[in-house]
């Protein structure tokens, strides 16, 4: 991720009327935003819609970004609230999802590479699948902490929670992730037997 100043400079350019500078901000953050949206929505089409909506919303309120936090933290807050509203509207089942067709659609499939590569890939596939089976807010916390490069304090700001609440939620999310991983691996072993 680029440093804060660079984001701030781009924002200043956008506010000065250079709309094109926003494209650079999109390029820089689209993968993080999309991953977070996907982890919450569990569906690529919905995630794309949420992510697009977030960038438009962020653009509209760009002048209100007070630079008290990182731009990414501010943006993730928009992603979280937009995704939650979207999920509520769609009345999606937020409990653990077991059906294969509703599982998170992974971008990277296991390819027929060397054995160690396959092993490594499958580890990530299982991990991704386990995250996909978590509740949206658990998935969001895990994603923000491990992939969004956000501290506990920043996650608190993004999710509008106290830092201690985030700590507890993160721990619970990890425990649930472990349970999901174990369950997935058990199923795999059963299939092999």
């Amino acid at each position, binding site marked *: 991720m680029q440093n804060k100043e660079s984001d701030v400079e781009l924002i200043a350019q*956008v*506010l000065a*009327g250079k*709309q094109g500078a*926003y*494209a650079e901000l*999109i*390029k820089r953050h*689209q*993968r*993080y935003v*999309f*991953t977070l949206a*996907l982890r919450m929505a569990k569906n690529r089409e919905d*995630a*794309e819609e949420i*992510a*697009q909506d977030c*960038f*438009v919303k962020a*653009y*509209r*309120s*760009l*002048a*209100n970004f007070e630079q008290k936090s990182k731009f990414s933290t501010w943006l993730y807050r928009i992603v979280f609230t937009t995704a939650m509203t979207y999920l509520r509207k769609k009345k999606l089942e937020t409990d653990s999802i077991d059906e294969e067709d509703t599982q998170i659609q992974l*971008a*990277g499939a296991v390819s027929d590479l060397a054995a160690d590569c396959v092993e490594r890939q499958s*580890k*990530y596939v299982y*991990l*991704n699948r386990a995250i996909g089976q978590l509740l949206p807010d658990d998935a969001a916390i*895990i994603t923000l*902490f*491990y*992939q969004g490069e956000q501290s*506990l304090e920043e996650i608190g700001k993004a999710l509008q929670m106290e830092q201690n609440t985030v700590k507890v939620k993160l*721990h619970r999310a*990890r*425990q649930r*992730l*472990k349970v999901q*991983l174990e369950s997935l691996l058990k199923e795999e072993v059963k299939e092999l037997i």
Partner: protein
Amino acid sequence: MKNIEEQMWKYVSGTCSAIEQEELEQLMTHQPEYRALFQEISATHLALMQLELEEPSMSFERNVMEQIKLEPLPSRFPQVDQRIIRGIAGFFALSILSLLVYAFYLTDWTQAALNFKMPEFNWDIHFNKTILSAFLFIDMILGLYFLDYLLRKKWQAK
């Protein structure tokens, strides 16, 4: 064990205190089960850190930029609420109506066949110099506000 597990997670993600860190290191050195737990948590932590980000579609950036082109430039000034515009319009409509009523009042109805006479009304009480000045002042403020709105809209459209 659960508490230890929580501390282990904090340890691998570097969020535990120096005292906790030392305690855990002691435990791991002397008890193989904690060492095994640490290795398990450490492996999961590493895998989570190495997870790749998902890619949106190729047209994602273009789609967002197309939507943004339709948006006005972001501004610190809030967009003027439609209710304010309607309020101003209502105020002017009411003013025109009042003037019309006043004009009708001044009309000499006795010349017509109608023998109608408006009831006595002391306009001097209600339309004195102060009221008129205040009325013109409010008009001027509203006019400037509306002019500012129009100019800003025109500037944003460029």
